[in-house]
């Protein structure tokens, strides 16, 4: 779609870019004050949750003293219709922002649809590959932790040559699993996979795995992880003392998993601020691509570890460790 758009408006874009470049070239020589002009940024968050707020706080912190002004923070309240209305309003506003920070998948997808001429930075999008968040004006920070990082932690926790069970919906997370196959083999783990297509199958899938696996890997799959299935998973895991690892600190906090590797949300905000700065300082650069989060945090649930009988002593010395409860 973007390519089609580009092809159709190639001349216009080219002319715009030409003028912008010419204008910038002129003012760079004529008035250094113009450089000092504040860049405006609009933050759009999908909904009001603590994790997003942390990231926004990190961004705000990162922007302080960097000549970046956060014009407004919009909350889409998790509603697609409302989101569209809000974004339409922003678009209709004559004062166009220099950069948009989209926090969350709803914000990212809607902003990507509505803005093609403003640099966009998205963050806190889970499984960003599923939503085709790519474009000439799009820069992003993935919220996924690489499979390798996750298995490295597991190896440290349990040692190699273990059977690791995973439940997934091939429509949503098939790609992660095919990648994991290679990584697991390399790190000497045996991956026992069970495909499901609805959340109702989670309980039976897990039941069939019990006894065959030494650890459970919970991947961010919206078919697998739902409110109902989390209860079932949590109960079964504790009942069978099954070490479980995932990428959600919330799940670890809730006691459903033992350990998680997840991005540090505040630091993600800081990373986004740095990227915004780069983009704003180099108007010719409209996209920095999608990068991995710079800093990860390890979340452990000591209570769960006690129930399962896993010694976490070696992890407590790790940097960036969060312990619950």
């Amino acid at each position, binding site marked *: 779609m973007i390519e089609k758009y580009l092809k159709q408006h190639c001349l216009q874009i080219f002319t715009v870019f030409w003028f912008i470049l010419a204008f910038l070239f002129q003012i760079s020589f004529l008035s250094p004050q113009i450089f000092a002009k504040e860049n405006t940024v609009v933050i759009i968050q999908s909904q009001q949750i603590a994790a997003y707020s942390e990231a926004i706080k990190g961004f705000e912190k990162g922007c302080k003293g960097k000549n970046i002004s956060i014009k407004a923070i919009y909350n889409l309240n998790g509603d697609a219709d409302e989101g569209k209305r809000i974004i339409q309003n922003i678009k209709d506003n004559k004062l166009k922002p220099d950069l948009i920070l989209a926090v969350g998948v*709803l914000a990212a997808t809607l902003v990507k649809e509505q803005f093609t001429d403003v640099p966009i930075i998205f963050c*806190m999008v889970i499984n960003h590959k599923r939503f085709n968040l790519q474009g000439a004006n799009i820069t992003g920070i993935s919220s996924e932790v690489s499979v390798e990082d996750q298995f490295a932690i597991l190896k440290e926790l349990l040692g190699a040559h273990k059977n690791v069970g995973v439940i997934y919906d091939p429509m949503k997370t098939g790609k992660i699993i095919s990648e994991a196959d290679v990584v697991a083999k390399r790190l000497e783990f045996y991956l026992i996979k069970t495909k499901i297509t609805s959340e109702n199958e989670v309980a039976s899938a897990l039941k069939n795995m019990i006894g065959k696996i030494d650890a459970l890997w919970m991947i961010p799959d919206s078919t697998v992880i739902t409110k109902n299935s989390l209860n079932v998973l949590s109960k079964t895991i504790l009942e069978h003392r099954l070490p479980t690892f995932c990428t959600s600190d919330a799940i670890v906090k809730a006691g459903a998993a033992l350990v998680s590797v997840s991005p540090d949300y505040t630091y993600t905000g800081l990373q986004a601020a740095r990227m915004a700065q780069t983009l704003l300082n180099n108007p010719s650069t409209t996209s920095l691509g999608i990068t991995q989060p710079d800093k990860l945090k390890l979340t452990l649930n000591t209570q769960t570890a006690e129930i399962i009988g896993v010694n976490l002593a070696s992890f407590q010395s790790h940097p960036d460790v969060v312990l619950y409860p």
Partner: protein
Amino acid sequence: MFSLRTKLILFMSMLTIFIGILSCLFFLIHSKSQQEEALKKLGTSLVMQLAQDSEVKHALNYTQSAFLDAPIKRVQTLDMEEEIGYCRISNIKSVIIEEKAPWISVRMKEIPMRHDYQNPDVQLTHRKITSSGETFYDFSIPVVEKQTFSEEAFAAQLLGEIPAKAEQKILGFVQIGLSPHKLNERIHRSILRSIIPMGLSIVLGGICITFFFTKYFVSPIRHMASITLDIAKGNLTRTVDIHSRDEIGQLSLSFNQMTKSLKASYDEKEKIMAQLRENVNNLSNANKELVRINEQLNEAQERLVRSEKLAVVGKLASGVGHELRNPLGAIRNALFIIKKKRGNTRISNDVQKFNQLVEIVEKETDRSIKIVNDLLGFSRTAKPAVSPTNIRSIIESSLSRLKIPDKINKVVQVENTLPLVPVDANQIEQVFINLVQNAMDAMPKGGWLTVHAQRENNFLAITITDTGCGIPDTIKNKIFDPLFTTKPKGIGLGLAISSNIIQRHEGSIDLKSKEGEGTSFIIKLPIIKT
């Protein structure tokens, strides 16, 4: 009491009926749960449709029942089987609309409104039974102002918060009640059209299969039983003609082998039995032959002994006779002269005594002469001088020579047409005299003497019967022996001579006697052919 087939049919039929009933029950429960599930799905989709309808949201926002007509109609068009019993839409303040189907008798007041939607564990569906006894499947759902973007909800969950619900504004509630009357109708229809025919077909099919199966299974056994009965009756040629490769086939094969070996041993036994029977017959014949030979030997021995005796007696008699007859004749002559002379001369007083003595001497001398004559007759070996003779004349001559006492009644029965017999008339007369004399001796107190003559084939049979004392069985075989007598003054030669004479005539003499009743002597003489 029952045959194997009946038992099998009974057992299998019971089993089939049991399975049929179980299948019917299973399908009934399954069909009921399916129908209920379908009803629940319909109710859920209807109530969801109403709750998500933007017009309903408008109506609830502005408390305008007029906005509800179109959504309710839309829902009603989806309810093709007319299962919606009632429908209630209310907002936080009041009930906006309450409708019930005309065929529902329940009052809407009886159906409580639900306000417990904040509880996350509450079920969408409730089965309600009203006070009037009607049952409904009640579906209630809150109408919320906005919808949550599902991926965002997932993200919120994964990132640690679920804020959306708390912020969702509830505009009101939609409540729909579905009546299960159509469901019950469908279940009844399913029972009548599917479940009962299925159960019946299972039972009937099972029974039919059992019937044919048992026939197939039992008929060879029955066939074998009938053949066994035949074999028991002795028909060892029967065989079982079953060529299946199962146990029945093996059994029939073994059965045929058994019958074959049974027949072989039976044939062997029959052969041995036939041989035994033949041997027994042979032995029996040999025994009979032996007995006959033995009898012949005994007879021959007896004859030999008798012949020897007769020869000795004959020799003796001949010698004694010759030697005694002449002196006895001289004595007799002398006595005759003495008697003659005594009549002329008177000698003494002892004349009476002398006469007595002379008479005694005469009498005894006569007797001695008779004995000597008998002995000589017995010893005679010359062939009889036969000439055709009328037997009646011999009988009459014999009887006339004897003095038969009056107390003895004489009966002579001789057929008039009797042929002539080639006999020595003197010898045969002697035989008759001897026999009649014996008969008279046996009847000292009187009785009946019968002489009977008749033709018997090529023989002439003369029977001399008396009603005397009879002859005891112990001496019957000795009666014809020479020198054997029961009389105090006999010398036992009469019957021996008679027997000898008859034998020389190639005839036979037999004896029939019963002690105390009498005796019959039967003489058979060959007849000359005229």
